[in-house]
């Protein structure tokens, strides 16, 4: 697969819309079951989660395959995560809760799983609005720092997913394991870099300048002389 070709990019762009198309078809044919609002809500959330996991796959994939031009896919997938997450939130606020802000306030306050969903959405929202190239340029070094919050976001997402469940654990377990693998990759990279950095700096011990009294050259008087001393560990 050639990731730098425009065709591959457009196909991926289209593929990410298929879940929405499926949901719309089921909606039109009244195929969402006995609790259609819940089904709609959950399916949008599920796809947001899946696409987030896919987004997190891009960097490791890039490292292993040494493919170029993957950053565009990461951006596209990330924006789709935002898209599906937004529909998920809109379904909750508008369709399920009917914009009843009083009840929404109570619901959010009393439902710990929503706090984490909200945290995840705020992070995804910030990353989406800082996604354009202009923003990236403006933020400079901070852009990378900001976008690392996706790790916190993904952990919030998996807890959000777990905490609203009563029964079935098979599917969430799959997502938990895959997320752990994806995050472990980051930890491994971080450790490797940290070790590497250590090799660059010869020592972490402090070096002190110590003044000592010494006989002068002509041995007539005592003069101050400075010496470098490596400080001993405690």
């Amino acid at each position, binding site marked *: 697969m050639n990731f730098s070709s425009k065709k591959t990019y457009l196909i991926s762009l289209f593929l990410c819309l298929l879940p929405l198309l499926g949901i719309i078809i089921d909606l039109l044919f009244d195929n969402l*079951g*006995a*609790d259609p609002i*819940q089904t709609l809500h959950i399916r949008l959330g599920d796809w947001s989660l899946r696409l987030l996991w896919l987004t997190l796959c891009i960097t490791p994939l890039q490292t292993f395959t040494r493919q170029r031009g993957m950053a565009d896919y990461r951006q596209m997938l990330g924006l789709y995560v935002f898209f599906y997450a937004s529909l998920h939130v809109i379904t909750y606020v508008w369709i399920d809760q*009917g914009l*009843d802000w009083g009840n929404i306030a*109570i619901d959010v*306050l009393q*439902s710990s799983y929503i706090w984490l969903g909200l945290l995840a959405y705020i992070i995804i929202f910030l990353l989406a609005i800082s996604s354009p190239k202009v923003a990236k340029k403006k933020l400079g070094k901070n852009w990378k720092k900001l976008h690392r919050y996706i790790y916190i976001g993904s952990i919030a997402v998996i807890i959000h997913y777990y905490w609203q469940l009563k029964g079935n*654990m098979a599917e969430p377990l799959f997502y938990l394991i895959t997320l752990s693998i994806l995050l472990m990759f980051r930890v491994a990279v971080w450790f490797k870099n940290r070790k590497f950095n250590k090799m660059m700096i010869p020592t972490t011990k402090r070096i002190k300048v110590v003044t000592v009294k010494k006989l002068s050259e002509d041995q007539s008087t005592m003069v101050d002389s400075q010496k470098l001393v490596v400080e001993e560990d405690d």
Partner: protein
Amino acid sequence: MIIKTTKSIPSSEITDPLVFKQRRQLIKAMVAMGLTGSGLYSDVLKASEDKAVLTPTAAEIVKNHTNYYEFTFNKTDATKLAQVLPTDPWSVEIIGEVEHPGIYHLEDLLSQQSIQEYIYRFRCVEAWSMVVPWMGFPLANLLKKVKPLSTAKFVQFTSVYDPDHMPNQKDKAMLEWPYVEGLRIDEAMHPLTLLATGMYGEKMPKQNGAPLRLVVPWKYGFKSIKAIVKIELVKKPALTTWSKSGPNEYGFYANVNPDVPHPRWSQNSERQLGGGFFTPRRKTELFNGYAEQVASLYSNMDLRHFF
């Protein structure tokens, strides 16, 4: 027994029970008006309006939206999977602190009872609800026949254990099987508490808990245990399946209460199934709207502590 397996009258010709009830209310209202003037009329009309609120949820929804974890963790597959469960013949063991313990054939138990329709709200702990026209009889009527001793303080129910037909029992999945539930004796004796054998004027579908299930309308749905094989009158409260699985999340009482949220989600409102896309959520009522009948059972209790 009233339950028929084959219907001789097409369902279209059977008067909708709700319509029937409303008619009866109207007649009562007219009688009241004639006898005592218009003062009572408004009261009866109000009662009639309250009844009218309880429009049963479409049967297709109730039959295809079940939590029957013995078969599956999703809500639709039990409709098919449960059909393999043998429910005939069926017997119920009634033991413990009771004058007439024994293993009873279901038919014999039912022959002593008159089956009636009860239209109740059904509120799941997952914050969805429906209105179900159950066919059944008060549990109290059965208990009175077997005569609980004065030492019987609680009633413990056990579901069927049939791993050959129930995949999640075979896999020992998630919960401890068989499913066990319990009630305090006064809750069990309350006239609202039913043993149900049918719904919508028909035999109970297997996925809804055939052939015999409990219905406790003021408690969360998981209390209403399905496919009962054992009723035990005991001195000490039973450790119920869900409270064993999540002691902080699912209590023994599990009374519907909008002011006591589940540790992870709110119970303040519910999605009533069968509505349209923009039908607002329903505000959850204390004791699921049956406070008038059952609140006195808990008059000296801290409902937050005994959730």
